[in-house]
């Protein structure tokens, strides 16, 4: 048996309201490629952040080559030989390749306070050879293709080998997102090569890539490591099952109140395309319907929602609201058509945190509190009080800044804002993210009530369970395209595994 390079022992990490990692164990051996899979929120990112020192575990320990390692920063992680190739590329495009490879570690080339470029180039060349990339180290990184940049990233982490006198452990987080198929093959080829002098932790939503490249796979679910498989002895179907296998609680999502939507189409999306985001998306949203878009990060579902909200301009296609075409690229036009967008990033896009409840509610439609040409603070305050009562918003007073409200109460203010504007269509992007359990149930109750009144919802839910529990119809998306339409009536809800096979 090969030597263990990294051992994660009983590691736990909690954030307010969630146990992101729960007693996780993991081992990575020398010259091994280990895959890590799980749906959004399973705890993968939290573990990666612990490994590179961005978070510190609440319990448990990390052992590097058998010795406990207390990692507090990216720099310290690199001193242990742990380095991550980020999902969004982290190279600076305005610097040369050699400067990027040795960014932060220039001391070795400095003599009399200036950098010996020749020596740095020679050293960079040596690292680039490890990944078989033959480019001039003085090239500007911005002039390279994405695949070449990915190789430079690998060369950068391989330089740890010389610095730490150990073979590095490389963490690859969704490295193929921006690459073409041929580039992916090339990248995998190089990864297999550098495997001979390193260990690799490969994180991806693409199960086919995981199965192709890795030796062993860990499956995460709800912050726990639920399974470990030797790659040659498993398959996609089993991994899907392992990732989502859990009980459903119908009551929680008020399925008893689920209605059958009417035949009237309120929003019709036709052949909507945006290069690099989504392709040929079409669907109809009916009066009183709750329709979910589901998919992994990068599936394009958020971008479709932002397009309907007027924040993204599509290349092609049409959106009809009540039969009339929507003017793209203008939030005001979307609002005018009766669309209210509840964004994922509540703090910056949903609310003006440094304003109180009243001004936030009246922001889209100030005319409701204008009396004889002037803004009436009394009318606005009354309006705020009405909504505080109707939505049961817990606040120290009408004058309190939204900054001082809890996540759930902030979300109620966002919903009040659109209800006061009398929208007929809600576009909800993760409406229950960062909202505590009690407030979540209130939000579900509210969505059901509004759907009964005929308001239509386009929903991106936080979890697969929420998707299934709330929706009348589920559309799965993968790589920017709709892959399947799955009805979810109360008497015949699909299982998470039915969805996930169309998402990954």
């Amino acid at each position, binding site marked *: 048996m090969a030597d263990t390079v990294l051992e994660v022992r009983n590691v736990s990490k909690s954030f307010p309201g969630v146990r992101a990692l729960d007693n996780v164990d993991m081992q990575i051996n020398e010259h091994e490629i280990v895959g890590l899979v799980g749906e959004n929120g399973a705890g993968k990112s939290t573990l990666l952040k612990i490994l590179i020192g961005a978070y510190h575990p609440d319990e448990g320990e990390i052992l590097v080559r058998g010795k406990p390692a207390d990692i507090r920063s990216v720099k310290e992680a690199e001193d242990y030989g742990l380095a991550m190739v980020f999902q969004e590329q982290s190279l600076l495009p305005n610097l040369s390749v050699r400067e990027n490879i040795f960014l932060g570690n220039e001391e070795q080339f400095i003599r009399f306070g200036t950098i010996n470029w020749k020596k740095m180039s020679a050293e960079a060349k040596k690292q680039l050879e490890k990944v078989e990339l033959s480019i001039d180290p003085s090239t500007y990184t911005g002039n390279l293709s994405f695949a070449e940049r990915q190789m430079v990233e690998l060369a950068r982490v391989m330089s740890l080998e010389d610095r730490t006198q150990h073979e590095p452990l490389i963490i690859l987080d969704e490295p193929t997102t921006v690459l073409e198929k041929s580039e992916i093959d090339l990248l995998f080829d190089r990864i297999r090569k550098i495997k001979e002098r390193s260990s690799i932790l490969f994180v991806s939503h693409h199960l086919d890539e995981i199965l192709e490249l890795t030796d062993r796979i860990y499956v995460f679910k709800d912050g726990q490591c639920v399974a470990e498989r030797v790659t040659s002895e498993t398959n996609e179907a089993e991994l899907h099952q392992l990732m989502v296998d859990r009980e459903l609680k119908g009551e929680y999502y008020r399925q008893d109140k689920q209605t059958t939507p009417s035949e009237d189409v309120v929003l019709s999306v036709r052949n909507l395309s945006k290069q690099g985001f989504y392709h040929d998306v079409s669907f109809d949203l009916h009066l009183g319907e709750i329709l979910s878009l589901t998919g992994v990060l990068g599936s394009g579902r958020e971008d479709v929602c932002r397009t309907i909200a007027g*924040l993204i301009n599509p290349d092609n296609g049409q959106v009809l609201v009540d039969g009339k075409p929507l003017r793209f690229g203008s939030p005001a036009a979307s*609002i*005018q058509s009766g669309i209210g967008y509840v964004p994922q990033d509540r703090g*910056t896009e949903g*609310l*003006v945190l440094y*304003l109180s409840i009243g001004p936030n509610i009246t922001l*889209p439609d100030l005319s409701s509190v204008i009396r004889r040409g002037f*803004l009436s603070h009394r009318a606005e305050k009354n309006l705020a009080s009405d909504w505080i009562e109707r939505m049961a918003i817990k606040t120290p007073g009408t004058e309190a800044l939204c900054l*001082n409200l809890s996540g759930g109460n902030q979300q109620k203010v966002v919903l009040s804002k659109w209800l006061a504007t009398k929208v007929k269509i809600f576009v909800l992007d993760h409406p229950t993210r960062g909202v505590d359990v009690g407030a979540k149930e209130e939000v579900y109750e509210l969505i059901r009530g509004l759907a009964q009144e005929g308001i239509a919802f386009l929903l991106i839910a936080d979890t697969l369970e929420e998707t299934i529990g709330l929706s009348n119809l589920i559309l799965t998306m993968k790589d920017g395209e709709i892959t399947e339409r799955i009805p979810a009536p109360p008497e015949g809800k699909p299982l998470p595994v039915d969805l996930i096979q169309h998402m990954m």
Partner: protein
Amino acid sequence: MSVITRMNKARKNTSWVEIMPIATLVILVILTSIGSPRFLLPATLLGLLSQSTTLLVMGLGQTFIILMGSIDLSIAPVAAMASVIAAMLLPIFGYWAFVIAALFGVFAGALTGVVHTKARIPSFIATLGAMGLWTGVAFVVSDATPISVSSSENQYLTWVTGTNFGVPNVVIIGFLVLLITYILEKYTRFGRYVKAIGAGEKATTVSGVPIDRYKIMAFIVCSTLAAFSGILLSTRMSGGSARMADGFLLKAIAVVILGGTAISGGIGGVLRTFIGVLIVMVLEVGMNMVGVNPWFQQAIFGGIIILAVTLTIDRSRITIIK
């Protein structure tokens, strides 16, 4: 951080920023009146107020820009240019000269506003460019020499230089501008949206507010008030000059910040700027009293701006300082 500590922190921040300027003003008034008992006489105060009106009008305009989280560096040359226009056109057009000078302010504001929003250039750079532009134009138009208003045209100046019921007209004008800007800030869409843009531009955009339109309007308001303060200067000085408003930029920003309007935007208002003007006014009296070199007073205002921002800024909202 728990919700409770966040709440307490937020509450503490607001009250601190609100009380500090008034406390500073009271302390300065006490110190100054001890040093010079005549300071508190109505005649002295009215004299000081009439001297401060030009600064007040300029500061009120700048308040909207800073509330929005932007900055306008072009106000002093805009004021100087307006004084030149007024002085040059007065013999030909009479009162209309002032209207034309004010319209110049509208134009200058629209120009920077459009450049800032449509070309997506930071307000700092757009108005720095405008500062250079109007300084140059004012020097060329005035041939780099002060233009004086002959005594035969003094009749056109009394609306500013005269007095009513013992109060200088310019002070009454100052209070009228304060009242109008207060209404603008508190009771109009413009005021609300300017504040919302400063407090959270993204959320304001998502709510469908036409951000660019209100930003351009704010620059128009600011430049027009700057031009108006240039008009007031030209009447008080009986003339116009490209150097008329030298040194005003620093002070006009100082009064906004000293009053407690946050440089990061969203928090503050015109009443706070009024307090800021009073602080600067008393401070100048005090500095003259103890004999601070008038040239060196600029240096003190520069230091005060930095000190005031250091004390009031909410650093949790700013992650990278550029």
